[in-house]
């Protein structure tokens, strides 16, 4: 079974530029998550999708971050414009459904904002 795929793995941009990350979840997983992991901290949920609908985006900085999951499969997370404090690893995860289901994580995209 293929895991969660993410690209790119690394990205370096200057502040005020825009950037986009892509995620392809495990086949058949209805729920998709985006997390932000700042160095030295645990992952923090940014947004959760159930199929192509948003379940929770309470911690997404909506003035600069946006995400979509068209057709309920892969997803894109965008930052525009980026700030220095956005430097982090962005992790995508997926699960079948339900609070008890295991979340499977991708390898992440390491973003550096200069």
């Amino acid at each position, binding site marked *: 079974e293929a895991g*969660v795929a993410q690209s790119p793995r690394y990205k370096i941009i200057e502040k005020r530029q825009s950037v986009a990350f892509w995620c392809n979840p495990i086949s058949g997983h209805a729920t998709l*998550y985006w997390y932000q992991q700042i160095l*030295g*901290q*645990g*992952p*923090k*949920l940014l947004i*959760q999708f159930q199929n192509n609908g948003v379940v*929770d985006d*309470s911690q997404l900085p909506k003035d600069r971050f946006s995400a979509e999951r068209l057709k309920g499969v892969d997803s894109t997370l965008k930052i525009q414009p980026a700030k220095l404090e956005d430097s982090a690893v962005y*992790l995508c*995860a997926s699960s079948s459904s339900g*609070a*008890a289901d*295991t*979340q*499977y*994580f*991708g*390898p*992440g995209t390491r973003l550096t904002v200069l």
Partner: protein
Amino acid sequence: AQSVTQLDSQVPVFEEAPVELRCNYSSSVSVYLFWYVQYPNQGLQLLLKYLSGSTLVKGINGFEAEFNKSQTSFHLRKPSVHISDTAEYFCAVRGLSGSARQLTFGSGTQLTVLP
């Protein structure tokens, strides 16, 4: 709101010695509890989870954890560690209802196994 506290940010231990990584949580609702491991430049991998039933949970790679409801703890243990266990370990909690249903992580414990 719920939170997770991992009491030790770094734990060095010699190879073949036992180890315990401590985790305490707080939540106003019933919870599920998880331990994840993260190797360098990789995503998180589930070690084990507690949903209900027996408070002693066994996971992969010889790890186990014990849920203690009265002390709101979920400590991770391994009787004999290997060099390959060197990694960052995250404890996480997920509530069963309302806004607590999102997975909340602790800040992590870096386990370093020394030869």
